[in-house]
């Protein structure tokens, strides 16, 4: 296995999570996008030139593949980055119920964000990229990414404070 494949394997799980995010949670589309990204890397149509971290480069390729896939399938309205899937809730007790209520509230707050604001939060909060790397993945300037990041945080904070979630650390425990 060469170095490229080793790096891809190392990032496989997180790459798939990013593909899922980009496809609005559609597993099949996420798999297709990831598959096409791997093919592009193997046949040389996408080449890592070391201008950024490999992770942000790979995420950028996946994002582009997701977009072209969406264009090709004309699924803009169906797949849409605007759509937030609601996962099934299966509470097993009071604690679970509280946690799920909190999750639902957070999801509701996230749903009010613009697609780019969601992208930047997903990349920075979940995938732990820097804002600069997130800008590379999203194909926007650093200043733009910073603005999206800041507005996303402010909106999310406001939504959560206005809602049921108390803005205290004690609410975090799960």
């Amino acid at each position: 296995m060469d170095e490229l494949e080793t790096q891809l394997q190392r990032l496989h799980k997180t790459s798939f999570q990013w593909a899922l995010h980009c496809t609005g949670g559609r597993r099949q589309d996420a798999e297709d996008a990831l598959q096409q990204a791997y093919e592009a890397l193997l046949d040389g149509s996408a080449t890592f030139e070391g201008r950024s971290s490999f992770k942000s480069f790979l995420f950028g390729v996946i994002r582009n593949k997701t977009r072209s896939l969406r264009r090709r399938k004309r699924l803009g309205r169906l797949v849409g980055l605007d759509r937030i899937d609601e996962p099934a809730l299966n509470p097993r007790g009071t604690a679970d119920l509280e946690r799920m209520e909190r999750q639902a509230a957070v999801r509701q707050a996230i749903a009010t964000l613009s697609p780019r604001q969601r992208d930047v939060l997903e990349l920075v909060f979940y995938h732990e990229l820097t804002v600069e790397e997130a800008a590379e993945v999203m194909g926007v300037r650093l200043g733009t990414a910073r603005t999206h990041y800041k507005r996303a945080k402010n909106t999310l904070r406001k939504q959560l404070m206005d809602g049921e979630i108390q803005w205290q650390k004690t609410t975090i425990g799960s």
Partner: protein
Amino acid sequence: MAKDDDRLLKELYNQGRPHEEEDPPEFSSMMEQARTSSRQKNADQRPLWFAAAAAVLLAVTMALIVMTPAGDKPDHRAEIAESVEPSPAATAVALENGEEWEELLEFADQIWEEEFPTDFLL
């Protein structure tokens, strides 16, 4: 304080992010499929390269045919080379024999016209 806020926000986001973590498809099977597709793509492109190479070869051949003067004209190139570029010794002998420069130039013009006829230049 702002960092604490960010950390709190991050934890809340990660708890409530829209898409639950899902197990990805098996890496090895995805890579195998990617390799197969990549090979197939290269194979599909090969006939195009062959066609392009054949077209270039054909074009060059046609150009050579068109540019070659018609008829079985004898090849004077070696003769011309000797005549147009006489050795210094031959030139000296010619001058000593009293040949005129005009005659030499006329001879050169004659050879030039023979080798490069007007219709060819046009």
